[in-house]
């Protein structure tokens, strides 16, 4: 039995190659000319299927975890433990009447959600889910991912503009201001990873994070000082890009403006909802690829678990983090939000750029020099953090209170 024989290297363990074997089995009987096309279709189908299901069960997981944090069960009436809730929501969204305001610009009004969902899905093409499970192998795949991400702003503008409603236009402008001001730290925090990994292709970046120091400490970027700071900046920017918790300004109910989604209902509204979750999943997947070593196993001994399982675990952990943060933090005001980006995240990312460069330059230091290298890098993170933190939280702080003399 193949399983019994210890596999020569983790790469060719049976479970590891299962998806590739499956694909070859399915496309084997086709003429050679058609084979790449069908393979591409297959990978598209799997990505859509997996991430569609992930979206469905992420909505349920969010409501269950939020409930549990708030000492209540969360949905448990539809199906056992509420497992059929996503499908119930889908049916509700489908059956809801789809009202389109008469004054709205029909074409754009319809196009906006479609474009938004398409763009969130396109980005998933370049993410390596497993050892050789990447849909499209490209040299500049990271740049491709962020080009697709940058276009989502356009779709939000279309949504805001097409509803022909003064408030949704103002809300769209605020949402765009938020997205644009967080696009910059998002991109800047990725640059040091590219500098250290030496390539723009996601598979090379994941390969660069392989191997473990003494079998215990993986070479993931997030576990190096500069990498941790870049990872933190990336996650905060990802939170803002996908309009999640501390930055979910556009559809904040306490805001005067009800957000650029006011004129949408029924399935189109569900599409926006889906786009938000898919955007969140795509950004988390990219974070896993860039910082958490993609499909690399955390410990050498754990290598036998297939690579795509590791990718799934890390992705789910990150998504859990998104939900956890949403349950805990209040919302930031629009001016604080942009100030946080321009006065804290961007400078931090710029300094981190230099830090990453130094790290790449001193790649060949070993032994005692490696410790010095770590120390320099750690210093490069902590010192600017303290200065920027002090300037950001000037005027805020816990207070002491006195009591009235009777």
């Amino acid at each position, binding site marked *: 039995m193949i399983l019994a024989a210890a596999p020569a290297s983790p790469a060719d363990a049976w479970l590891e190659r299962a998806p590739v074997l499956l694909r070859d089995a399915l496309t084997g009987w086709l003429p050679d000319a058609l084979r790449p096309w069908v393979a591409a279709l297959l990978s598209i189908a799997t990505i859509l299927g997996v991430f569609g299901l992930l979206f469905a069960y992420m909505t349920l997981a969010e409501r269950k975890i*939020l409930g549990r*944090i*708030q*000492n*209540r069960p969360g949905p448990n009436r539809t199906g056992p433990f509420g497992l059929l809730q996503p499908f119930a929501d889908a049916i509700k969204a489908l059956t809801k009447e789809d009202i389109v305001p008469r004054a709205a610009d029909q074409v754009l009004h319809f196009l906006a959600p479609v474009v938004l969902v398409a763009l969130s899905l396109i980005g998933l093409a370049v993410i390596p889910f497993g050892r050789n499970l990447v849909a499209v192998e490209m040299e500049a795949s990271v740049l491709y991912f962020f080009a697709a991400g940058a276009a989502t702003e356009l779709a939000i503008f279309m949504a805001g503009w097409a509803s022909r409603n003064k408030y949704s236009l103002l809300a769209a402008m605020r949402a765009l201001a938020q997205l644009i001001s967080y696009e910059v730290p998002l991109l800047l925090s990725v640059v040091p990873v590219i500098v250290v990994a030496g390539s723009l292709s996601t598979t090379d970046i994941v390969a660069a994070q392989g191997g473990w120091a003494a079998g215990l400490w993986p070479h993931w970027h997030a576990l190096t000082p500069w990498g941790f700071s870049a990872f933190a900046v990336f996650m905060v920017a990802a939170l803002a890009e996908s309009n999640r*918790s*501390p930055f*979910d300004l556009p559809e*904040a*109910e*306490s*805001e*005067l403006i009800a957000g650029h989604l006011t004129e949408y209902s029924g399935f189109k509204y569900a599409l926006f909802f889906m786009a938000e979750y898919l955007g969140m999943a795509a950004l988390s997947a990219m974070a896993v690829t860039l910082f958490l070593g993609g499909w690399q196993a955390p410990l050498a001994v754990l290598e036998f678990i297939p690579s795509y399982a590791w990718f799934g675990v890390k992705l789910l952990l990150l998504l859990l983090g998104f939900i956890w943060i*949403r*349950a*805990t*933090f*209040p*919302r*930031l*005001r*629009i*001016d*604080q939000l942009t100030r946080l980006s321009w006065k804290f995240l961007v400078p931090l990312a710029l300094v981190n750029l230099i830090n990453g460069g130094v790290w790449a330059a001193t790649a060949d230091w070993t032994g005692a020099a490696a410790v010095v290298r770590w120390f320099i890098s750690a210093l490069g993170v902590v010192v600017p953090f303290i200065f920027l933190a002090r300037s950001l*939280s000037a*005027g*805020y*702080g*816990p*207070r002491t*209170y*006195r*009591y*009235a*003399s*009777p």
Partner: protein
Amino acid sequence: MMLPDPASTGLARVRKIEGSALGLRTPAFAPEEGAGDLLEVSLGPHHPSTHGVFRMDVVLDGERIVRLKPVFGYLHRNHEKLGEGTSYLGSMPYTDRLDYLNSMTNNWAYAIAVEKLAGIAVTERAEYIRVILAELSRLLNHTCLAGFLMQDCGCSGTPLMYAFREREKILDLFESLSGSRMMCNFQRFGGCRVDPSAEWLAATRKLVDGYGAFLDEFEALLSGNEIVMARTQGVGRLPAALAVNAGVTGPMLRASGVGHDLRKVDGYGVYPRFNFRVPIGREGDVYDRYMVRMLEMRESISILDQALRGLPGGPILDPKSKQRGLRPKAGEAYGRIEGPKGEIGFFLVSDGTGNPTRYRVRAPSFVNLTILEDLCLGHSVADAVIILGSIDIVLGEVDR
């Protein structure tokens, strides 16, 4: 405490716009002409935060609020005219419906007013029970406020659920004692209606002992949170002079640095027997109002602890006291207590018959609400929502 003259306070600079039908008052700074078109928006009456039916007509210059006109009255139920037509005992259940979060303190204030009017003495045990129930009601009110305030700040329900979890425990106590969670109708003229049983006192003791731990966890979640501090510090600053002149009372006044607490000033009931402190703030912004209420809760816990230990035996209501056909002699009386939201007072004028000829309620949230515009000018709408949340209004009391 010498009251500063009105000219130097905020009120003087507010003057009525000539010929303005709405009676709008020009704000501290008039919007610069040509500063882009002003956006007239009305927020409510279905108000996003759970304060009830209340509307704010806001004039926006871009992000900043330039003029804000609170509009309420949606919940007006003619409470005071009804009071004139109902007997003294009959009005007691109506006082539950004023500030429907704290029916115990409303009842107590009304009972004090009638006792002052009719000269009825209150038994020792009843005084202690009234203090215990008032402090429980203060805990309940401040916990709810913190929950609603964080909900306005944008937390997706977590602090509110924790606050409601604790509130349910207190409401269960009220229900097992008075029969109803929120509409207790519990105080009578000269004492209380029901004598709390031993199990009830044990349950209260357990709640009081556990409340400190809840407050620590709640503050760990919120008070140190940088986003909460960023959203609330420096927002809606209320200067002490304006607070005093506008008649603001309760935690809002104390947060602005004025240490005025009726429990110390009037010393009504048996409060002088307990030693407790009155926390006061310095900035008078939303964060101070939140923190002052948190510290007040810790003081309430110590009061409850002392009151439960010192609860004497004896009757809760002297049997000869007349409740039903009470006909106090002609005269007038004003009874007031330090309710969780501020000074809640009842002014009664009696002409010797069974019904008061004048029944006036001094509702703290109504008075505290009058300076909403002065607090919100120059802030954004998101801040206005939080400032309103920090004032802690309940529309039942505001509209009566």
